[in-house]
């Protein structure tokens, strides 16, 4: 009886899980079908012939790899930039006393409310002023508009979780404030930093609107807009290439996710729970 119940529970849960995962499975299956099989009515549930030609075409005939490189550079730079700023900013907000600190923290929350569409034109003008238009740097700066508040907020709750005594001990032991930050706080903050870095990376990797407006050359275009512009046009929608591109766009996230899943959960644990 108990076995049956267990079996039932597992079956039920796994069906749900597979339903959730189905779009991703379908994405992979579609990307493996030859073009002719794609428009079969009704569709074939499993590919009759498996082909990697779409992947091959993407890699050899399109700027996919350039977009990919751009996305990697963009997401990595954004992540490093935001996490460094966020970590020292959070240190300041949590462990220092000065006037206006609370107000600042509230303002950070307020910046969540800003929709990207509001900021985009002034941002673009500024990028031109700074001589950054049509560069990855402009996207890095633009991505900080949403990534930095989030990172700061996450890191702040992580920072609050590092016992104050540790820093005090380091100070008494002869460290300066920054010395204590480096020797004692950073190592303690590491899981938080990793998790924040992951979230930032994901946000940046997936961003669409800024990338659409702020850059316009294949040399600096990231994957999101690159793939859309390249494969959806007035003359064709290359579903098979789109699905292959989708799979490859998600690959780095799969890899990162597989290795660092526990950090992500921890990040939510600290960030979301403590608010």
């Amino acid at each position, binding site marked *: 009886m108990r076995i049956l119940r267990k079996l039932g529970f597992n079956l039920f849960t796994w069906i749900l899980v597979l339903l959730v995962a189905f779009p991703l499975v379908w994405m992979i299956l579609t990307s493996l079908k030859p073009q002719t099989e794609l428009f079969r009515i009704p569709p074939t549930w499993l590919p009759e012939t498996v082909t990697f030609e779409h992947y091959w075409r993407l890699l050899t005939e399109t700027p996919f790899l350039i977009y990919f490189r751009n996305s990697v550079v963009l997401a990595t730079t954004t992540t490093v930039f935001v996490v460094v700023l966020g970590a020292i900013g959070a240190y300041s907000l949590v462990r220092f006393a000065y006037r206006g600190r609370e107000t600042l923290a509230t303002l*950070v929350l307020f910046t969540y409310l800003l929709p990207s569409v509001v900021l985009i034109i002034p941002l673009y003008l500024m990028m031109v002023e700074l001589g950054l238009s049509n560069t990855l740097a402009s996207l890095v700066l633009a991505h900080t508009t949403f990534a930095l508040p989030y990172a700061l907020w996450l890191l702040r709750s992580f920072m609050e979780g590092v016992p104050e005594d540790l820093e005090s001990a380091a100070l008494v032991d002869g460290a300066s404030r920054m010395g204590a930050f480096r020797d004692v706080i950073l190592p303690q903050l590491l899981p938080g930093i990793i998790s924040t870095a992951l979230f930032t990376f994901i946000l940046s990797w997936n961003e*669409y609107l800024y990338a659409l407006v702020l850059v316009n050359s294949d040399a600096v275009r990231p994957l999101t807009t690159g793939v859309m512009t390249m494969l959806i046009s007035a003359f064709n929608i290359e579903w098979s290439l789109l699905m292959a591109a*989708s799979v490859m766009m998600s690959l780095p996230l799969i890899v990162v996710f597989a290795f660092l899943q526990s950090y992500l959960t921890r990040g939510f644990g600290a960030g979301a729970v403590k608010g």
Partner: protein
Amino acid sequence: MATAAHAGHRLERRYARLGVFLIAPTIVVFSLVIVYPLLAAIYLSFFSVYTPTLEGEFTGADNYIRLLTNAAFWNSLITTLIWTVGTLSLQIVFGVGMALLLHQNLWFRSLARSLVLFPYFVSTVVAVLVWRWLFNDLYGAINHGLMQLGIMDMPLDWLGTMPNAMIGVILVGAWKYFPFVVIAVLARLQTIPEHLYEAAKIDGAGPIARFFDVTLPQLRSVLVVIILLRAIWDFKEFDLIYLLTGGGPVTSTQTLSLLVYQEAFALNEMGQAAAYSIGMMLVMLVFMLVYIRRTAREA
């Protein structure tokens, strides 16, 4: 109260200066990429501005008067609310449910967790593409799956007519974002002490009573935060809806973000767009403050 006459302040002041120094880069970046554009947007909202040239006339509150009197803003606001409430409640219900299931002793639990959390991490572009392909009228798996199962006999137009389009968008939004709820709830579930359940069991509570009497109160603090965060994000969601339906049919899925985009870049009315976006922010602010006050009072 801290005057220079007091002894013992130099070190404190030095620390305070260091603190300010450390937050300074963040403040600079914030001013540069958030505060300044925001002020510029507010400034623009008092002009009638042609987007490509940013030239135009000062029109005072005209844009705001049009916002108040024109149906466009209010219709989009209602659409936005329907979308937000719809997708958010699905996210919460499904997210909490899935978290409870994944908290149990499941076969291959970590694989199941990875699969469930994955939609949150794929790009919106990818998610939209996959779903548009699934929803495709001629070759889509959903229509044919449902037809093969005998649930319907004609392909359904998922994204082109109402109410299907709104349902479709809400469904995809829920699919994309419910893992966020799962992760947060899962993290919290792991911290609920087992003895609470044992106590409830001894008191004769069944699984359902245990959920409502033990689990839910323990999840309250998390849910308060997640609902706030997700509500804000859903409210200003652009990519997903823009790429999925573009706001159609007619304007049935044109949320405020899309309205702003359309006004700014299709109609080249930057000033009006800025006014809409300021209005949108004010609405969000009001909702947020009410929400925070209410949940704070209940807590």
